[in-house]
């Protein structure tokens, strides 16, 4: 038996499409969560003290070995648990993923100026575990509830102390990693319960699902946090976590760690198109190191009503409601309007990405919702030089383009730490002439 605590990886491919045109460039590719192994994805819907949490699993082993233990701040009723569709999270991932866009230079003989568009900132409950109740009591463990939801069998456990709970989990074939006792004890003293889910193979077979679907829990709590401490115990090295926060007022940030915007809106060489995934991974690693491995990174913050350019369409009101955006019901419920899908309003999405371990992230992530509705996206730009026939003296355009290509090469080296000479060797400078911008002193050009 293997335990999985908030660790999972969602498999998606990098989609390539050049159909959408917008202010902020033509969409080329995106860097979605499939770039990182063992990535967990969590959707947090929050308004006031109401929270709906959706946890995505793409467990790689046999489902009979799957189990998840999650600390929860309150008792959870059967009706507060749901199983969602993987496609929801895949869509949210695609919509919010960092993106590569492109611009094509116009014919220099028609006009020389380049437009730089500024980004606008804008079953009723059934007993499923037949455990020896006396043994449970002897261990001080209380099974507060047991439910069967979709393909999952779920227990809500509380305990007097951690040793009893750890022993109980061990006796019930949950393989708890060493060191868990202390962390479990800490959560128990904070009046937290444990949400334990494993797969009911018969149910799964009858439902016909092959992948594990995301679990959802809705609860009320003043604590706007995500417990990550158990997750650091059974992992070797760092874990990748994506948090998608869906809120009413604005961007979400961590209050106990620095939330940093990733460098964005940077021009990079054309060849990045074919290796956008590697580019993004290396850039993320470099930025993480630059922040002493202690920062949470903002990858996307946007009003859910639109996008520019769109890496995927915004989520529909139905999709958002399925993810737990409970306040949308008020809007469409009134008047009984059936005109769907409508663009979702009143939802602000924040995508946070963190690479964590216990050394650099000793404490659980604590969040707050801010009033900041300024739009932000991880956006990287490639500019295609004009390749048509030039029927005029375009030497100025060509020189400017070569200098731009050199800048793009340097940007790429700065962002990723890749070797500048290797980058330069792959840049198709116009006319195969590389401008020696570094070695020419600025004063030499003044009187030429």
């Amino acid at each position: 038996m293997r335990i999985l605590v908030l660790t999972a990886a969602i498999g998606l491919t990098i989609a390539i499409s050049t159909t959408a045109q917008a202010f902020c460039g033509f969409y080329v590719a995106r860097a979605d969560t499939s770039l990182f192994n063992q990535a967990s994805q969590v959707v947090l819907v929050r308004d006031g003290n109401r929270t709906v949490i959706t946890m995505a699993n793409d467990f790689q082993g046999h489902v009979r070995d799957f189990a998840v233990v999650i600390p929860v701040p309150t008792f959870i009723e059967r009706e507060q648990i749901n199983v969602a569709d993987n496609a929801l999270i895949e869509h949210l991932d695609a919509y919010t993923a960092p993106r590569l866009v492109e611009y094509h230079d116009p014919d220099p003989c028609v006009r020389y100026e380049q437009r730089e568009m500024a980004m606008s900132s804008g079953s009723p409950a059934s007993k499923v575990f037949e455990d020896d109740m006396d043994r449970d009591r002897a261990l001080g463990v209380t099974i507060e509830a047991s439910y069967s939801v979709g393909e999952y069998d779920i227990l809500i456990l509380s305990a007097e102390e951690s040793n009893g709970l750890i022993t109980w989990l061990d006796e019930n074939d949950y393989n708890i990693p060493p060191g868990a006792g202390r962390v479990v004890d800490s959560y128990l003293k904070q009046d937290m319960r444990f949400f334990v889910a494993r797969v009911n193979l018969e149910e799964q077979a009858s439902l016909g699902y092959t992948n594990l679907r995301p679990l959802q829990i809705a609860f009320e709590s003043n604590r706007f946090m995500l417990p990550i401490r158990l997750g650091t115990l059974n992992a070797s090295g760092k874990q990748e976590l994506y948090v998608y926060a869906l809120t009413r007022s604005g961007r979400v940030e961590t209050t106990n760690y620095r939330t940093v915007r990733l460098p964005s809106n940077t021009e990079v060489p054309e060849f990045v198109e074919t290796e956008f995934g590697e580019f993004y991974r290396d850039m993320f690693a470099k930025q993480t190191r630059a922040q002493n491995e202690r920062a949470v990174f903002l990858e996307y913050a946007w009003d859910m009503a639109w996008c520019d350019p769109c890496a995927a369409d915004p989520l529909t009101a139905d999709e958002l409601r399925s993810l737990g955006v409970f306040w949308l019901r008020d809007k469409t419920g009134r008047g009984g309007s059936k005109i769907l899908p409508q663009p979702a309003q009143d939802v602000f999405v924040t995508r946070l990405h963190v690479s964590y371990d216990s050394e650099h992230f000793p404490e659980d992530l604590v969040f707050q919702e801010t009033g900041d509705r300024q739009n932000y996206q991880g956006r990287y730009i490639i500019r295609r030089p004009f390749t048509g026939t030039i029927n005029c003296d375009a030497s100025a355009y060509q020189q400017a383009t070569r200098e731009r290509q050199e800048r793009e090469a340097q940007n790429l080296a700065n962002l990723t730490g890749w070797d500048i000479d290797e980058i330069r060797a792959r840049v198709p400078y116009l006319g195969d002439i590389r401008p020696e911008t570094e070695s020419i002193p600025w004063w030499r050009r003044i009187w030429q």
Partner: protein
Amino acid sequence: MNIFRTLADPRYYQIAVLSSLVIFGVCILDFGIHWYNALALIISTQIVQYICMRVAGLTPFDPLSAGVTSLSLTMLLRTDAIAIAVIAACIAIGSKFLLRAGGKHIFNPANIALVTLMFCSDNAWVSSGQWGSATLGALTLACLGFLVLTRARRAETTIAFLLAYAALMTGRALWLGDPLSIPLHQLQNGALLIFAFFMISDPKTTPDRSSTRIFYGVFVASVAYIIQFVFYEPNAAIIALILCAPVVPVLDRIARGRHYRWESPADPRASNF
């Protein structure tokens, strides 16, 4: 004017440190502080201070306290609306002249502006996690420098608050069986240091006697702990200070002491604002 007497006014040091921190935050740390909001805050606090002093018939005009208030607000208040910055200035300075007891203002001006806007507006918030551990060393040094330069006069509140808060965090970790890296992480918070050295330290809104100041520091730390770990509200210390402030006039009545006066202004009455 005696230059040494003038420089003995701790507000010069506060303004120097806070200005450096604002510039550092804007240029290096990407705090999300908009320059125009900062400017609006700094100018409007001075205007409101000027108007209030004129109405109260106080001379000469003393820009220092309003300067410290505007810089504290710039550092802690986040907003995307310039109007919020102006309203913050009005609340902060206005409260000094309107909400008074026993010849002192009750609330720290920046504190009351922050809390009022945090709870009344969707467009105002405080980003407490934005300092990062890398910059903490420099910040600690700046804060300790403040203690040295002012010879720790009236610094009992700051010291008592920090020690009590550290003790509570450590105690909680020991009770929960958490590693000590957790309380250490909780204490390595830039916003907490700014609060301790530039907000709760305000000699005008702390009790007049040394013993009551120590009690007050511990009291604020305890309330902050309850807000953070019972009610799980962010920005606990800032909220705690506003809740505890009305206790000061009571403490002053129980244990009378000497009102604090800033060193520089000529008119002793003006130094009360």
